[in-house]
Protein backbone atom coordinates (compact mmCIF):
# COMPACT_ATOMS: atom_id res chain seq x y z
CA UNK A 1 0.00 0.00 0.00
CA UNK A 2 2.71 2.43 0.95
CA UNK A 3 4.59 1.45 -2.19
CA UNK A 4 1.55 2.16 -4.29
CA UNK A 5 1.04 5.47 -2.53
CA UNK A 6 4.65 6.41 -3.12
CA UNK A 7 4.43 5.48 -6.77
CA UNK A 8 1.28 7.52 -7.12
CA UNK A 9 2.88 10.48 -5.38
CA UNK A 10 5.96 10.33 -7.60
CA UNK A 11 3.89 10.04 -10.76
CA UNK A 12 1.64 12.90 -9.75
CA UNK A 13 4.66 15.05 -8.96
CA UNK A 14 6.12 14.31 -12.38
CA UNK A 15 2.82 15.05 -14.09
CA UNK A 16 2.43 18.29 -12.16
CA UNK A 17 5.97 19.33 -13.04
CA UNK A 18 5.51 18.58 -16.76
CA UNK A 19 2.13 20.29 -16.88
CA UNK A 20 3.58 23.27 -15.08
CA UNK A 21 6.46 23.50 -17.51
CA UNK A 22 4.13 23.22 -20.49
CA UNK A 23 1.76 25.89 -19.17
CA UNK A 24 4.67 28.21 -18.40
CA UNK A 25 6.01 27.58 -21.89
CA UNK A 26 2.61 28.45 -23.33
CA UNK A 27 2.58 31.68 -21.32
CA UNK A 28 6.02 32.54 -22.64
CA UNK A 29 4.98 31.61 -26.16
CA UNK A 30 1.94 33.88 -26.24
CA UNK A 31 4.15 36.81 -25.36
CA UNK A 32 7.08 35.67 -27.50
CA UNK A 33 4.86 35.25 -30.53
CA UNK A 34 3.45 38.75 -30.30
CA UNK A 35 6.89 40.20 -29.63
CA UNK A 36 8.70 38.33 -32.40
CA UNK A 37 5.89 39.02 -34.85
CA UNK A 38 5.99 42.67 -33.89
CA UNK A 39 9.73 42.92 -34.29
CA UNK A 40 9.57 41.28 -37.69
CA UNK A 41 6.93 43.78 -38.78
CA UNK A 42 8.78 46.83 -37.38
CA UNK A 43 6.41 47.10 -34.44
CA UNK A 44 7.07 46.74 -30.73
CA UNK A 45 4.45 44.21 -29.69
CA UNK A 46 2.80 44.54 -26.28
CA UNK A 47 4.52 47.24 -24.23
CA UNK A 48 1.99 48.33 -21.62
CA UNK A 49 1.73 45.65 -18.93
CA UNK A 50 4.94 45.57 -16.96
CA UNK A 51 8.34 46.59 -18.31
CA UNK A 52 8.40 45.92 -22.06
CA UNK A 53 5.07 44.17 -21.70
CA UNK A 54 6.45 41.04 -20.06
CA UNK A 55 3.40 40.67 -17.81
CA UNK A 56 1.01 40.62 -20.77
CA UNK A 57 0.31 36.84 -20.57
CA UNK A 58 -0.88 37.23 -16.98
CA UNK A 59 -3.11 40.13 -17.92
CA UNK A 60 -4.54 38.04 -20.75
CA UNK A 61 -5.09 35.09 -18.44
CA UNK A 62 -6.91 37.25 -15.88
CA UNK A 63 -9.02 38.82 -18.61
CA UNK A 64 -10.01 35.44 -20.07
CA UNK A 65 -10.76 34.10 -16.60
CA UNK A 66 -13.23 36.86 -15.77
CA UNK A 67 -14.92 37.17 -19.14
CA UNK A 68 -18.55 36.23 -19.47
CA UNK A 69 -19.07 32.67 -20.60
CA UNK A 70 -21.65 32.74 -23.37
CA UNK A 71 -23.39 29.73 -24.89
CA UNK A 72 -25.12 30.94 -28.04
CA UNK A 73 -28.83 30.29 -28.57
CA UNK A 74 -29.43 27.16 -30.58
CA UNK A 75 -26.04 25.69 -29.76
CA UNK A 76 -25.73 22.07 -28.81
CA UNK A 77 -24.90 22.67 -25.15
CA UNK A 78 -23.27 19.32 -24.44
CA UNK A 79 -20.96 19.32 -27.44
CA UNK A 80 -20.28 23.03 -27.05
CA UNK A 81 -19.06 22.37 -23.52
CA UNK A 82 -17.15 19.22 -24.37
CA UNK A 83 -15.33 20.50 -27.45
CA UNK A 84 -12.74 22.73 -25.74
CA UNK A 85 -11.91 19.96 -23.28
CA UNK A 86 -11.68 17.47 -26.13
CA UNK A 87 -9.22 19.83 -27.73
CA UNK A 88 -7.17 20.51 -24.62
CA UNK A 89 -6.70 17.02 -23.19
CA UNK A 90 -5.08 15.44 -26.28
CA UNK A 91 -2.76 18.42 -26.51
CA UNK A 92 -1.49 17.87 -22.97
CA UNK A 93 -1.62 14.10 -22.77
CA UNK A 94 1.06 13.63 -25.43
CA UNK A 95 3.71 15.10 -23.15
CA UNK A 96 3.59 11.93 -21.05
CA UNK A 97 5.95 10.08 -23.38
CA UNK A 98 8.34 12.89 -24.31
CA UNK A 99 11.84 12.29 -22.92
CA UNK A 100 13.04 15.61 -21.58
CA UNK A 101 16.45 14.47 -20.44
CA UNK A 102 18.84 11.54 -20.24
CA UNK A 103 17.50 8.11 -19.54
CA UNK A 104 18.90 7.87 -16.01
CA UNK A 105 17.16 6.40 -13.00
CA UNK A 106 17.35 6.72 -9.26
CA UNK A 107 15.79 4.74 -6.44
CA UNK A 108 13.40 5.95 -3.75
CA UNK A 109 12.60 3.27 -1.16
CA UNK A 110 13.18 0.55 -3.71
CA UNK A 111 11.11 2.18 -6.43
CA UNK A 112 12.94 3.02 -9.64
CA UNK A 113 12.16 6.54 -10.77
CA UNK A 114 12.94 7.97 -14.18
CA UNK A 115 12.86 11.68 -13.57
CA UNK A 116 12.86 12.91 -17.17
CA UNK A 117 10.09 10.90 -18.73
CA UNK A 118 6.68 10.30 -17.18
CA UNK A 119 6.20 6.94 -18.86
CA UNK A 120 8.29 5.18 -21.46
CA UNK A 121 5.69 3.14 -23.31
CA UNK A 122 6.89 1.07 -26.24
CA UNK A 123 4.43 2.63 -28.71
CA UNK A 124 5.20 6.20 -27.66
CA UNK A 125 5.05 7.85 -31.05
CA UNK A 126 1.85 6.06 -32.05
CA UNK A 127 0.28 7.22 -28.82
CA UNK A 128 1.15 10.84 -29.63
CA UNK A 129 -0.16 10.55 -33.19
CA UNK A 130 -3.39 8.96 -31.99
CA UNK A 131 -4.10 11.69 -29.47
CA UNK A 132 -3.07 14.46 -31.84
CA UNK A 133 -5.75 13.19 -34.25
CA UNK A 134 -8.33 13.24 -31.46
CA UNK A 135 -7.61 16.94 -30.96
CA UNK A 136 -9.08 17.68 -34.37
CA UNK A 137 -12.42 16.28 -33.20
CA UNK A 138 -12.57 19.04 -30.62
CA UNK A 139 -12.23 21.57 -33.41
CA UNK A 140 -14.79 19.94 -35.68
CA UNK A 141 -17.33 19.41 -32.89
CA UNK A 142 -16.78 22.91 -31.54
CA UNK A 143 -17.41 24.30 -35.01
CA UNK A 144 -20.54 22.24 -35.45
CA UNK A 145 -22.00 22.77 -31.97
CA UNK A 146 -21.74 26.56 -32.09
CA UNK A 147 -24.72 26.99 -34.43
CA UNK A 148 -22.86 29.61 -36.43
CA UNK A 149 -21.97 29.58 -40.10
CA UNK A 150 -18.43 30.80 -39.49
CA UNK A 151 -17.77 28.15 -36.88
CA UNK A 152 -19.22 25.47 -39.09
CA UNK A 153 -17.05 26.52 -42.03
CA UNK A 154 -14.02 26.52 -39.73
CA UNK A 155 -14.87 23.03 -38.54
CA UNK A 156 -15.38 21.79 -42.10
CA UNK A 157 -12.06 23.23 -43.16
CA UNK A 158 -10.45 21.50 -40.22
CA UNK A 159 -11.96 18.24 -41.41
CA UNK A 160 -10.60 18.89 -44.91
CA UNK A 161 -7.23 19.72 -43.44
CA UNK A 162 -7.00 16.70 -41.18
CA UNK A 163 -7.26 14.25 -44.09
CA UNK A 164 -4.50 16.01 -45.98
CA UNK A 165 -1.86 16.30 -43.27
CA UNK A 166 -2.49 13.42 -40.86
CA UNK A 167 -1.28 10.79 -43.30
CA UNK A 168 1.88 12.71 -44.09
CA UNK A 169 2.79 13.15 -40.43
CA UNK A 170 2.53 9.42 -39.95
CA UNK A 171 4.40 8.49 -43.12
CA UNK A 172 7.20 10.99 -42.63
CA UNK A 173 7.93 9.45 -39.26
CA UNK A 174 8.15 5.92 -40.63
CA UNK A 175 11.67 6.49 -41.97
CA UNK A 176 12.89 7.33 -38.49
CA UNK A 177 11.14 4.29 -37.08
CA UNK A 178 12.88 2.06 -39.64
CA UNK A 179 16.25 3.53 -38.68
CA UNK A 180 15.64 3.27 -34.94
CA UNK A 181 13.79 -0.04 -34.98
CA UNK A 182 11.53 1.13 -32.20
CA UNK A 183 8.40 3.20 -31.54
CA UNK A 184 9.51 4.31 -28.09
CA UNK A 185 10.66 7.92 -28.05
CA UNK A 186 13.22 7.11 -25.35
CA UNK A 187 14.85 4.43 -27.53
CA UNK A 188 14.70 6.63 -30.63
CA UNK A 189 16.44 9.45 -28.77
CA UNK A 190 19.04 7.14 -27.26
CA UNK A 191 19.88 5.81 -30.73
CA UNK A 192 20.84 9.31 -31.86
CA UNK A 193 23.50 9.88 -29.19
CA UNK A 194 27.07 10.89 -30.01
CA UNK A 195 27.14 14.00 -32.14
CA UNK A 196 24.92 15.69 -34.69
CA UNK A 197 26.02 13.34 -37.46
CA UNK A 198 24.05 10.64 -35.64
CA UNK A 199 20.82 12.65 -35.61
CA UNK A 200 18.29 11.11 -37.94
CA UNK A 201 18.17 14.33 -39.91
CA UNK A 202 21.74 13.63 -41.09
CA UNK A 203 22.39 10.03 -40.07
CA UNK A 204 23.70 7.43 -42.48
CA UNK A 205 22.63 5.31 -44.23
CA UNK A 206 19.53 7.37 -45.02
CA UNK A 207 19.39 11.04 -43.98
CA UNK A 208 15.79 11.95 -43.25
CA UNK A 209 15.97 15.48 -44.66
CA UNK A 210 12.92 15.11 -46.91
CA UNK A 211 10.98 13.40 -44.17
CA UNK A 212 11.90 16.25 -41.86
CA UNK A 213 10.62 18.86 -44.31
CA UNK A 214 7.39 16.93 -44.79
CA UNK A 215 7.03 16.59 -41.02
CA UNK A 216 7.61 20.32 -40.44
CA UNK A 217 5.04 21.34 -43.04
CA UNK A 218 2.53 18.78 -41.81
CA UNK A 219 3.03 19.79 -38.21
CA UNK A 220 2.37 23.40 -39.07
CA UNK A 221 -0.88 22.21 -40.64
CA UNK A 222 -1.59 20.01 -37.64
CA UNK A 223 -1.35 22.92 -35.20
CA UNK A 224 -3.50 25.17 -37.41
CA UNK A 225 -0.80 27.78 -37.73
CA UNK A 226 -0.16 30.21 -40.57
CA UNK A 227 0.09 29.43 -43.51
CA UNK A 228 -2.32 26.57 -42.78
CA UNK A 229 -4.61 28.37 -40.33
CA UNK A 230 -7.67 27.68 -42.47
CA UNK A 231 -9.94 26.60 -39.60
CA UNK A 232 -9.52 29.94 -37.84
CA UNK A 233 -8.77 32.23 -40.82
CA UNK A 234 -9.54 35.49 -39.06
CA UNK A 235 -9.75 37.49 -42.27
CA UNK A 236 -12.40 35.20 -43.72
CA UNK A 237 -14.23 33.42 -40.91
CA UNK A 238 -14.13 35.95 -38.01
CA UNK A 239 -12.27 33.47 -35.82
CA UNK A 240 -13.23 30.18 -37.44
CA UNK A 241 -14.23 27.34 -35.18
CA UNK A 242 -14.02 29.33 -31.94
CA UNK A 243 -15.98 32.36 -33.15
CA UNK A 244 -18.73 31.78 -30.59
CA UNK A 245 -16.46 30.87 -27.70
CA UNK A 246 -15.53 33.30 -24.99
CA UNK A 247 -13.88 33.34 -21.60
CA UNK A 248 -12.42 30.13 -20.26
CA UNK A 249 -13.62 27.94 -23.11
CA UNK A 250 -11.82 30.17 -25.57
CA UNK A 251 -8.77 30.01 -23.32
CA UNK A 252 -8.91 26.21 -23.54
CA UNK A 253 -8.77 26.32 -27.33
CA UNK A 254 -5.99 28.85 -27.16
CA UNK A 255 -4.02 26.78 -24.66
CA UNK A 256 -4.57 23.66 -26.77
CA UNK A 257 -3.20 25.35 -29.87
CA UNK A 258 -0.04 26.46 -28.14
CA UNK A 259 0.39 23.19 -26.25
CA UNK A 260 0.10 21.42 -29.60
CA UNK A 261 2.83 23.64 -30.97
CA UNK A 262 5.09 22.70 -28.06
CA UNK A 263 4.21 19.03 -28.52
CA UNK A 264 5.02 18.87 -32.23
CA UNK A 265 8.22 20.81 -31.58
CA UNK A 266 9.22 18.31 -28.89
CA UNK A 267 8.42 15.39 -31.20
CA UNK A 268 10.40 16.94 -34.04
CA UNK A 269 13.34 17.52 -31.71
CA UNK A 270 13.16 13.98 -30.38
CA UNK A 271 12.73 12.25 -33.73
CA UNK A 272 14.93 14.22 -36.10
CA UNK A 273 17.24 16.42 -34.04
CA UNK A 274 18.52 13.97 -31.47
CA UNK A 275 16.24 14.91 -28.60
CA UNK A 276 18.24 15.82 -25.54
CA UNK A 277 21.57 14.78 -27.09
CA UNK A 278 24.11 17.53 -27.55
CA UNK A 279 25.39 18.08 -31.11
CA UNK A 280 28.81 16.82 -29.95
CA UNK A 281 29.63 13.45 -28.35
CA UNK A 282 28.91 13.32 -24.63
CA UNK A 283 28.50 16.47 -22.59
CA UNK A 284 30.85 19.27 -21.55
CA UNK A 285 29.77 19.07 -17.92
CA UNK A 286 30.78 15.39 -17.80
CA UNK A 287 34.09 16.28 -19.41
CA UNK A 288 34.96 18.89 -16.79
CA UNK A 289 34.21 16.43 -14.01
CA UNK A 290 30.55 16.93 -13.20
CA UNK A 291 28.92 13.83 -14.73
CA UNK A 292 26.12 13.98 -12.16
CA UNK A 293 25.04 17.34 -13.58
CA UNK A 294 25.20 16.28 -17.24
CA UNK A 295 21.40 16.18 -17.36
CA UNK A 296 21.31 19.99 -17.04
CA UNK A 297 23.19 20.32 -20.29
CA UNK A 298 21.03 17.69 -21.97
CA UNK A 299 17.80 19.35 -20.93
CA UNK A 300 19.18 22.66 -22.10
CA UNK A 301 19.86 21.20 -25.54
CA UNK A 302 16.34 19.81 -25.69
CA UNK A 303 14.97 23.23 -24.79
CA UNK A 304 17.15 24.91 -27.40
CA UNK A 305 15.93 22.56 -30.12
CA UNK A 306 12.30 22.90 -29.12
CA UNK A 307 12.43 26.67 -28.88
CA UNK A 308 14.21 27.10 -32.20
CA UNK A 309 11.47 25.00 -33.72
CA UNK A 310 8.86 27.21 -32.08
CA UNK A 311 10.68 30.24 -33.43
CA UNK A 312 10.29 28.73 -36.88
CA UNK A 313 6.52 28.72 -36.32
CA UNK A 314 6.56 32.46 -35.55
CA UNK A 315 8.90 33.11 -38.43
CA UNK A 316 6.62 31.34 -40.90
CA UNK A 317 3.65 33.23 -39.50
CA UNK A 318 5.39 36.55 -40.06
CA UNK A 319 6.30 35.60 -43.62
CA UNK A 320 3.64 33.59 -45.36
CA UNK A 321 0.07 34.28 -46.43
CA UNK A 322 -2.68 31.72 -45.95
CA UNK A 323 -3.27 28.92 -48.47
CA UNK A 324 -6.65 28.09 -49.90
CA UNK A 325 -7.80 24.71 -48.74
CA UNK A 326 -7.82 23.19 -52.20
CA UNK A 327 -4.16 24.28 -52.43
CA UNK A 328 -3.49 22.69 -49.06
CA UNK A 329 -5.13 19.43 -50.07
CA UNK A 330 -3.39 19.34 -53.43
CA UNK A 331 -0.06 20.02 -51.74
CA UNK A 332 -0.73 17.36 -49.14
CA UNK A 333 -1.83 14.62 -51.51
CA UNK A 334 0.15 15.32 -54.66
CA UNK A 335 3.44 16.60 -53.25
CA UNK A 336 4.00 15.60 -49.67
CA UNK A 337 2.48 12.14 -49.81
CA UNK A 338 4.70 10.95 -52.72
CA UNK A 339 7.74 12.44 -51.02
CA UNK A 340 6.93 10.70 -47.75
CA UNK A 341 6.27 7.38 -49.53
CA UNK A 342 9.44 7.69 -51.59
CA UNK A 343 11.35 8.42 -48.42
CA UNK A 344 10.08 5.22 -46.85
CA UNK A 345 11.15 3.18 -49.89
CA UNK A 346 14.60 4.77 -50.07
CA UNK A 347 15.15 4.46 -46.31
CA UNK A 348 14.12 0.83 -46.13
CA UNK A 349 16.30 -0.08 -49.14
CA UNK A 350 19.24 1.80 -47.67
CA UNK A 351 18.85 0.17 -44.28
CA UNK A 352 18.50 -3.26 -45.89
CA UNK A 353 21.67 -2.95 -47.99
CA UNK A 354 23.53 -1.33 -45.11
CA UNK A 355 22.81 -4.37 -42.96
CA UNK A 356 23.71 -6.71 -45.83
CA UNK A 357 27.09 -5.03 -46.17
CA UNK A 358 27.75 -5.44 -42.47
Amino acid at each position, binding site marked *: MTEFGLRLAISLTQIAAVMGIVVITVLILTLAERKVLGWMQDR*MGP*MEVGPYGILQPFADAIKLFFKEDIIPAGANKFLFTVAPILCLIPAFIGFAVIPWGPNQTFEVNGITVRPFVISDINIGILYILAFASLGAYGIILGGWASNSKYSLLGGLRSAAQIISYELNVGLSIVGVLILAGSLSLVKITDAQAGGFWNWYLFALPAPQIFAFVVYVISSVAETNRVPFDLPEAESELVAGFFTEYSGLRFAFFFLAEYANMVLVSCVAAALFLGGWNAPYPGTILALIGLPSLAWVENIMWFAVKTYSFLFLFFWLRATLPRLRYDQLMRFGWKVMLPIALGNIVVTSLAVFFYQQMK
Partner: protein
Amino acid sequence: MASTATTKRSNLYEWFKTITFYEILVGMKATLSHLLHYRPVTVQYPHEKRTLPDNYRGMLALLRYDDGTEKCVGCDLCEAACPSRVIRVVSAEVPGEPTKRYSKEYYMDMTRCLFCGMCVDACPVDALGMTREFEWAVYDKRQLHLNKQQLLAIGDRSFPVREKRLELQHPNVAFFNVAFKHVPPKPD
Protein backbone atom coordinates in the same frame (compact mmCIF):
# COMPACT_ATOMS: atom_id res chain seq x y z
CA MET B 1 18.30 24.18 -80.87
CA ALA B 2 20.17 26.42 -78.54
CA SER B 3 16.94 28.08 -77.38
CA THR B 4 15.37 24.74 -76.39
CA ALA B 5 18.50 23.97 -74.40
CA THR B 6 18.19 27.25 -72.52
CA THR B 7 14.48 26.74 -71.82
CA LYS B 8 15.30 23.26 -70.59
CA ARG B 9 17.95 24.64 -68.31
CA SER B 10 15.69 27.42 -67.06
CA ASN B 11 12.95 24.84 -66.47
CA LEU B 12 15.41 22.81 -64.45
CA TYR B 13 16.37 25.95 -62.58
CA GLU B 14 12.71 26.73 -61.82
CA TRP B 15 12.18 23.18 -60.66
CA PHE B 16 15.20 23.42 -58.40
CA LYS B 17 13.85 26.68 -57.01
CA THR B 18 10.53 25.00 -56.30
CA ILE B 19 11.88 22.01 -54.46
CA THR B 20 14.20 24.10 -52.31
CA PHE B 21 11.38 26.55 -51.40
CA TYR B 22 13.54 29.33 -52.78
CA GLU B 23 10.78 31.97 -52.84
CA ILE B 24 9.69 31.17 -49.31
CA LEU B 25 13.29 31.38 -48.12
CA VAL B 26 13.65 34.80 -49.73
CA GLY B 27 10.59 35.97 -47.82
CA MET B 28 11.86 34.47 -44.59
CA LYS B 29 15.18 36.21 -45.11
CA ALA B 30 13.34 39.51 -45.44
CA THR B 31 11.41 39.02 -42.20
CA LEU B 32 14.54 37.90 -40.38
CA SER B 33 16.47 40.93 -41.56
CA HIS B 34 13.71 43.12 -40.11
CA LEU B 35 14.05 41.22 -36.84
CA LEU B 36 17.81 41.66 -36.75
CA HIS B 37 17.75 45.31 -37.79
CA TYR B 38 14.94 46.13 -35.43
CA ARG B 39 13.82 49.73 -35.85
CA PRO B 40 10.21 50.11 -34.80
CA VAL B 41 8.18 52.71 -36.65
CA THR B 42 5.46 52.84 -34.02
CA VAL B 43 5.19 55.49 -31.31
CA GLN B 44 4.11 54.50 -27.80
CA TYR B 45 1.31 56.98 -28.09
CA PRO B 46 0.07 58.05 -24.68
CA HIS B 47 3.62 58.08 -23.36
CA GLU B 48 5.37 59.65 -26.30
CA LYS B 49 3.77 61.88 -28.88
CA ARG B 50 4.81 63.00 -32.30
CA THR B 51 5.80 66.59 -32.81
CA LEU B 52 3.00 67.98 -34.92
CA PRO B 53 3.69 70.35 -37.81
CA ASP B 54 2.97 74.06 -37.35
CA ASN B 55 0.15 74.03 -39.83
CA TYR B 56 -1.58 71.12 -38.11
CA ARG B 57 -5.33 71.47 -38.32
CA GLY B 58 -6.58 70.53 -34.88
CA MET B 59 -9.21 71.90 -32.52
CA LEU B 60 -10.68 75.27 -33.49
CA ALA B 61 -10.38 78.24 -31.15
CA LEU B 62 -11.43 81.87 -30.88
CA LEU B 63 -8.58 84.33 -30.38
CA ARG B 64 -8.09 87.58 -28.51
CA TYR B 65 -5.94 90.64 -29.00
CA ASP B 66 -3.13 91.30 -26.57
CA ASP B 67 -5.33 93.65 -24.55
CA GLY B 68 -7.76 90.81 -23.91
CA THR B 69 -10.53 91.94 -26.25
CA GLU B 70 -12.07 89.43 -28.61
CA LYS B 71 -11.01 89.53 -32.21
CA CYS B 72 -14.34 88.29 -33.52
CA VAL B 73 -16.43 90.97 -35.15
CA GLY B 74 -19.54 88.86 -35.66
CA CYS B 75 -19.50 89.01 -39.45
CA ASP B 76 -20.89 85.46 -39.95
CA LEU B 77 -18.45 84.75 -42.75
CA CYS B 78 -17.18 81.62 -40.98
CA GLU B 79 -20.72 80.39 -40.68
CA ALA B 80 -21.18 80.93 -44.40
CA ALA B 81 -17.90 79.26 -45.29
CA CYS B 82 -18.38 76.18 -43.16
CA PRO B 83 -19.31 73.18 -45.34
CA SER B 84 -20.67 71.11 -42.46
CA ARG B 85 -22.66 73.84 -40.72
CA VAL B 86 -20.62 73.54 -37.58
CA ILE B 87 -20.66 77.21 -36.68
CA ARG B 88 -23.56 79.32 -35.48
CA VAL B 89 -22.92 83.00 -34.83
CA VAL B 90 -25.33 85.38 -33.13
CA SER B 91 -24.07 88.81 -34.05
CA ALA B 92 -24.85 91.99 -32.17
CA GLU B 93 -23.93 95.62 -32.04
CA VAL B 94 -21.45 96.70 -29.45
CA PRO B 95 -23.54 98.72 -26.98
CA GLY B 96 -22.84 102.38 -27.45
CA GLU B 97 -20.73 101.96 -30.58
CA PRO B 98 -22.93 101.78 -33.70
CA THR B 99 -20.09 100.97 -36.12
CA LYS B 100 -18.82 98.00 -34.15
CA ARG B 101 -20.28 94.56 -34.01
CA TYR B 102 -19.31 91.53 -32.07
CA SER B 103 -20.49 87.96 -31.70
CA LYS B 104 -22.92 87.86 -28.84
CA GLU B 105 -23.03 84.11 -28.98
CA TYR B 106 -20.84 81.73 -30.90
CA TYR B 107 -21.48 77.99 -31.05
CA MET B 108 -19.50 75.20 -32.63
CA ASP B 109 -20.81 71.67 -32.97
CA MET B 110 -17.49 69.85 -33.09
CA THR B 111 -19.18 66.48 -33.69
CA ARG B 112 -19.67 67.61 -37.29
CA CYS B 113 -16.43 69.50 -37.88
CA LEU B 114 -14.19 67.98 -40.53
CA PHE B 115 -11.23 70.28 -39.79
CA CYS B 116 -11.00 71.69 -43.31
CA GLY B 117 -9.91 75.11 -42.05
CA MET B 118 -12.23 77.06 -44.36
CA CYS B 119 -13.61 79.13 -41.49
CA VAL B 120 -10.08 80.18 -40.57
CA ASP B 121 -9.45 81.23 -44.17
CA ALA B 122 -12.77 83.06 -44.33
CA CYS B 123 -12.25 85.15 -41.20
CA PRO B 124 -11.37 88.75 -42.17
CA VAL B 125 -9.79 89.56 -38.80
CA ASP B 126 -8.01 86.26 -38.06
CA ALA B 127 -10.26 85.65 -35.10
CA LEU B 128 -10.28 81.91 -35.60
CA GLY B 129 -7.28 79.66 -35.19
CA MET B 130 -6.60 75.97 -35.42
CA THR B 131 -4.69 74.60 -32.49
CA ARG B 132 -2.62 71.46 -32.26
CA GLU B 133 -5.02 69.86 -29.81
CA PHE B 134 -6.46 66.58 -31.01
CA GLU B 135 -7.25 64.58 -27.89
CA TRP B 136 -10.87 65.51 -27.70
CA ALA B 137 -12.39 62.10 -27.02
CA VAL B 138 -15.32 62.47 -24.62
CA TYR B 139 -17.85 60.14 -23.06
CA ASP B 140 -20.79 62.43 -23.82
CA LYS B 141 -21.23 63.77 -27.34
CA ARG B 142 -22.84 66.91 -25.97
CA GLN B 143 -19.51 67.94 -24.50
CA LEU B 144 -18.42 68.66 -28.07
CA HIS B 145 -21.03 71.40 -28.47
CA LEU B 146 -18.81 74.31 -27.56
CA ASN B 147 -19.87 77.83 -26.72
CA LYS B 148 -17.98 81.07 -26.99
CA GLN B 149 -16.40 80.93 -23.54
CA GLN B 150 -15.03 77.43 -24.16
CA LEU B 151 -13.67 78.38 -27.58
CA LEU B 152 -12.00 81.46 -26.14
CA ALA B 153 -10.51 79.33 -23.36
CA ILE B 154 -9.04 76.95 -25.93
CA GLY B 155 -7.57 79.92 -27.76
CA ASP B 156 -6.16 81.32 -24.54
CA ARG B 157 -4.32 78.13 -23.65
CA SER B 158 -3.13 77.34 -27.18
CA PHE B 159 -2.06 80.80 -28.32
CA PRO B 160 -0.33 82.50 -25.40
CA VAL B 161 1.31 85.08 -27.70
CA ARG B 162 -1.40 87.42 -28.95
CA GLU B 163 -1.47 89.99 -31.71
CA LYS B 164 -1.81 93.71 -31.13
CA ARG B 165 -5.03 95.39 -32.19
CA LEU B 166 -5.11 95.95 -35.93
CA GLU B 167 -5.17 99.75 -35.76
CA LEU B 168 -2.06 99.62 -33.58
CA GLN B 169 -0.28 97.28 -35.97
CA HIS B 170 -0.92 99.53 -38.96
CA PRO B 171 -1.55 103.08 -37.71
CA ASN B 172 -2.12 104.67 -41.13
CA VAL B 173 -4.63 102.23 -42.57
CA ALA B 174 -8.37 102.39 -42.16
CA PHE B 175 -10.00 99.22 -40.90
CA PHE B 176 -13.37 97.66 -41.05
CA ASN B 177 -15.06 97.54 -37.67
CA VAL B 178 -12.59 99.79 -35.91
CA ALA B 179 -14.28 102.57 -33.98
CA PHE B 180 -14.10 106.03 -35.57
CA LYS B 181 -13.27 108.66 -33.04
CA HIS B 182 -15.28 111.36 -34.88
CA VAL B 183 -18.53 109.47 -34.93
CA PRO B 184 -20.53 110.27 -31.87
CA PRO B 185 -21.62 107.35 -29.71
CA LYS B 186 -25.15 106.17 -30.20
CA PRO B 187 -27.58 107.49 -27.69
CA ASP B 188 -29.08 104.72 -25.61
